[in-house]
Structure formats: structure tokens, C-alpha cells
């Protein structure tokens, strides 16, 4: 279990992390979301005792990080896949970490096997692809068989097989009763992996609740209907006091459960070709929640009408 109490980090004027209080519980995968610059990495570094909080504290299993004896046996972390000396082999990289925490050399070979790097264990990390570097970082996290695991963007650079593997790995680790804390920008991945979400924006806690609650609270749910008897269906809806939005060949109904629509159709003998409850995606929910706290907004390439000509207008003349 990781517990944050009023964690704050200031860099001069800028508040990177602002009074964060939450707990990461064992037995489930907890997703850590937020736009770029929200303070996720800073928070994770403070959890690992790498950055000193301006105020507040982090407790790992009730203790401060620096008080942990052999911390790798308590918490394993993947922060940055490239956080290794490029001139050192994967094996030696893990070996020096293992030795610092009194782990046997056998364990190094074992985790190399777990992440599938045994064949390149003696190669310098310099020549590793991003995906291989990521696997090496995951191996380092697993090294001490810790009760708490923390991953920052674990699927970065992994191929689909690797993504699938890390997803199942995290779920299995959580099922074993461990605490798993994962940050990611990939909402579709998170939707598949995490059960609980902690969302921050501009250093502040925006949400700390279960995945289902999060999506439900931050998005629109509706029922999609396709029917060959559209006009009659619309009449029936109108008489029942419901409205539908038409998009393409389908109808979207807000504020009503699929069950009700099914009953309504059955009562009037309507044929439906589709009756599916739609839940907005995690991505949509996330976008809605964090809309105001995004840095580096991109823009549409098409300038608003009346603004300057596409580009190189004067160049064209010349």
C-alpha cells in the first residue's frame, strides 16, 4: 500500500504537485492518469524518495522510503526505461541492483527469462531498442518480487505481444494481492487493465474512484437503436416522451435504459435490428475531466477563414 498525505512539490513559483492525498490499495491495478505536465512523474519520483517533497509525505507500507530495508523487496518501479548505463550489459545492470539489496544472482537470470531477454543478457544496453529497454526496466522492477509495483508508461515501445504480456502480468500481480500502480497515456490500455483510477491535473487530485464510476460520472451513456420501422419507432418514442438523435442510420437515445426501450418496442410490436447500451470510452471521460488542465494544446491545421493565407503566400509570388 502506498499512502500520500498532502504531498506538495514546488519548483520556485511553479507548483508541480499540489496537496495530493490518496492511497493505492493492494489487490487491484490502480491507474494513474493525467495530461502531460500534470505532475505524475514528479509524484512517482517522490514516492521513490528521489525528489524531496516541499511538504507532505509518502508512506510505503507505513514507512518512509528511506527507512525501507532492501527497498527492492518492498517496491519495484519502472520509471524510465533508459535509466541504465548504456555501456553495461543487461545482466550486469540487474546484478548490481540485486546485490545492493542482497538478492541472489539466480534471481537475475530468472527475471531476465521472465521478460524474455535471456538471449541478449550479455549485450550492452546501448544497442537495445525501446521495447527491449522497457523489458529491462520491468525486469528490474520484478527483481525483488516486491509487494508493491509501480510502472510509468510500461507499454511504451513494446510491440502488441509485449503490450498483451504486460497487461496480463499487471493483472496477475494484482490478483496475487500486490499493489500495482500504473501511469499511462493510453486510455484504451488503461480501460483494459485498471480497476481503480487516480486522475490528477495541474498537480491536483481530480478523481480517485473505480473505473466504472469514473466513466459513468464523466461521460454520456446512451442507447443505440437500429430498426427497419424508423418512423413508427419515432412516433412511439414521442408518445412515451423520449427523444432520439439521428446519426447515420442509427438512433441514439439519451436518459433511458436499454431494458425500457426493449419493453417499449415489444409492447408496440416493433422490430429492432440493434439495441445496444453504449458506454462512452475512458478516453472521452478523461478528456471531459481534464479539458482545462492540458498544456501544449495542438491546433487544427486549417486556419480560421479570413486569417492569413495557408503558408508561403509571399513565397508563391517570388
Amino acid at each position: 500500500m502506498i499512502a500520500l498525505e498532502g504531498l506538495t512539490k514546488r519548483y520556485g513559483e511553479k507548483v508541480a504537485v499540489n496537496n495530493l492525498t490518496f492511497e493505492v490499495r493492494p489487490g487491484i491495478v490502480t491507474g494513474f492518469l493525467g495530461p502531460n505536465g500534470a505532475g505524475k512523474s514528479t509524484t512517482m519520483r517522490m514516492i521513490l524518495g528521489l525528489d524531496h517533497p516541499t511538504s507532505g509525505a509518502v508512506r510505503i507500507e507505513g514507512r518512509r522510503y528511506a527507512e525501507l530495508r532492501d527497498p527492492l523487496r518492498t517496491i519495484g518501479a519502472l520509471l524510465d526505461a533508459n535509466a541504465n548505463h548504456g555501456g553495461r550489459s543487461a545482466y550486469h545492470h540487474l546484478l548490481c541492483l540485486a546485490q545492493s539489496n542482497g538478492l541472489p544472482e539466480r534471481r537475475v537470470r530468472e527475471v531476465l527469462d521472465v521478460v524474455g531477454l535471456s538471449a541478449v543478457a550479455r549485450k550492452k544496453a546501448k544497442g537495445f531498442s525501446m521495447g527491449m529497454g522497457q523489458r529491462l526496466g520491468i525486469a528490474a522492477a520484478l527483481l525483488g518480487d516486491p509487494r508493491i509495483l509501480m510502472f510509468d508508461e510500461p507499454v511504451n515501445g513494446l510491440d502488441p505481444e509485449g503490450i498483451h504480456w504486460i497487461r496480463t502480468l499487471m493483472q496477475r500481480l494484482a490478483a496475487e494481492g500486490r499493489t500495482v500502480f500504473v501511469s499511462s497515456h493510453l486510455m484504451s490500455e488503461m480501460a483494459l487493465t485498471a480497476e481503480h483510477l487516480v486522475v490528477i491535473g495541474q498537480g491536483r487530485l481530480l478523481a480517485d474512484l473505480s473505473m466504472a464510476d469514473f466513466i459513468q460520472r464523466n461521460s454520456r451513456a446512451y442507447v443505440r437503436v437500429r430498426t427497419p420501422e424508423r418512423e413508427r419507432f419515432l412516433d412511439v418514442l414521442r408518445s412515451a416522451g423520449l427523444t432520439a438523435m439521428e446519426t447515420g442510420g442509427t438512433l441514439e437515445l439519451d436518459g433511458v435504459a436499454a431494458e425500457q426501450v426493449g419493453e417499449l418496442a415489444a409492447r408496440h410490436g416493433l422490430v429492432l435490428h440493434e439495441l445496444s447500451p453504449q458506454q462512452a470510452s475512458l478516453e472521452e471521460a478523461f478528456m471531459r475531466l481534464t479539458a482545462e488542465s492540458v498544456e501544449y494544446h495542438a491546433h487544427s491545421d486549417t486556419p480560421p477563414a479570413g486569417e492569413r493565407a495557408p503558408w508561403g503566400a509571399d513565397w508563391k509570388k517570388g
Partner: protein
Amino acid sequence: MTTERTQQIPGQAPRTPSYVSPIPIRQANLGHALASEWTKIRSVRSTMWTLGIFLALVVVLGCMVAGLIGADTYLNAPYTMPAFFGLLLGQMCLVSLGVLVVSSEYGTGMIRTTFTASPQRHRVLAAKIIVFFLVAFVTAAVAIAVVGLYTQLTVDAPSNPAWLPTVFKGALYVSLMGVLALAVGSMMRHSAGAITTMLGVVLVPAILPPFLLFNESLVDVAQFVSDYNAISALSLIFEGSPSTGHGGAQTALLAGLTVVACAGAFAAQANRDV
């Protein structure tokens, strides 16, 4: 941006609706590459550092030495002579910059961006050589000229030789050394390796002759090496006499080497995978 579904690009299958930029596409040329390299060389700090240290070394050391050496030295040496000491050390700055101009692109991966933007690789290298040579030459000439002026103004002694030609020759020699380093950097693609190699090129011939003298048959070689190494070349440029020459032959040798190295660099990069 407008979408025009017309066909203008030759060789393309005519059926598919394809985007064509409203801005006409014209051929890129060496002028573009030169502008690009000029932007590159002035937008990194390593340029400022190496050139700044070079200027400081030549000017500061030169002005210090100018006051220390006897006034009668200038009877047979030009007023720019004190610049020689700074150039000895300073040429390593130009060598470093020459290497970095190319090898930092390989080190950072920027070279892929560059070669994607200009698949005519020879044009990129040519532009690099030209821009670097001009920058190095102008900087070196300014530094030597400053030393010459300072000496002329402060040293109360007559001087026989004209010092303007030595500004040109000295600057030419060290810039050629820089271009040689650039070519070596382009072939080796590794900053530290290329700088070490160039250190060897500058220093080894200078300390080699005593060792060659052990063997009688190598006496001629030793003589050649001691006459033509970088340090004697520079010293001849600044204090040569009619009997020893004024470094013209040495500069020609360096120019020849540089041309060969550049040819090697062009050939090596032409079809190499990057």
C-alpha cells in the same frame, strides 16, 4: 489548406485522387543547403564555445607573448608572430568544431532527419564543408589580425616582413586542419574517436622525429616529418625565412590531404546506411 485533386507529379498512377500542395515545388539547391548549415552551426552552443575559446587563446596568449619577446624578433618576423602560440593550442578548438559539425549529427540521430530532408547527401556535406571553412577562416583571420594590430601598436620596434599575408596563410592553415577534421568526423561518425584521431594527426608527427632517428634508414623520413608536421608548418608561416620557405609547401600538403579526406568522406557517405 486547399485540396486539389489534380495530377501534377510525374510517374504517378493517374487514377487516385491525390493531394497536391498549392505551393509549387521547386528543386532544392546548394544555396538552400548553405542557409540550412549556417542556421545549424550558429544555433548550438558548442560552436560558440569552441570558437570563443579559440579567439580567447589566440588573442590573449598572443597579446601576452607580444610584450614578452624581444623587440628585435620582429626584424625577421611579422607582427602577427605572437599569434603562433595561441594557434598551436587553438587549432584543436577548430579541429573539435570541425569534427562536431558532422559527428554530433550522427551522435544525436539528427543525420537521419537531415538526410531525409535532403537525400542528396553530397550537397549536405558540401554545404557543411563550405560553411565551416568560411566560419573557421574568418574567425582565425580576425584573431590573427587582432594580434598583428596589437603588436604593431604596442611594440616599439620596426618590422621587415609584411604581416597581412600571414593573416591569410595562418587562417588558411588552421581552417584546412578543421576541414580535415570534418572529413575525418564524417568518415568515423564518432566524436571522441575522430577528435582523438585528429589529436594524433597534429601531435604524433611533432614528437615522432626523435624516435625515427634511431634508425639510419629513416633519417629522410624523420627529416620530412619534422619539416612538414603541423607545428613546424605554423611556425614557418609566422617566422619562416627565405631559406626555410614560408609554409607554402606545408599548406599545400595539408590541402592535398584535406582534399583526399573530403573525397573519402563523400565516397563513404554516398551509399552508407545511416
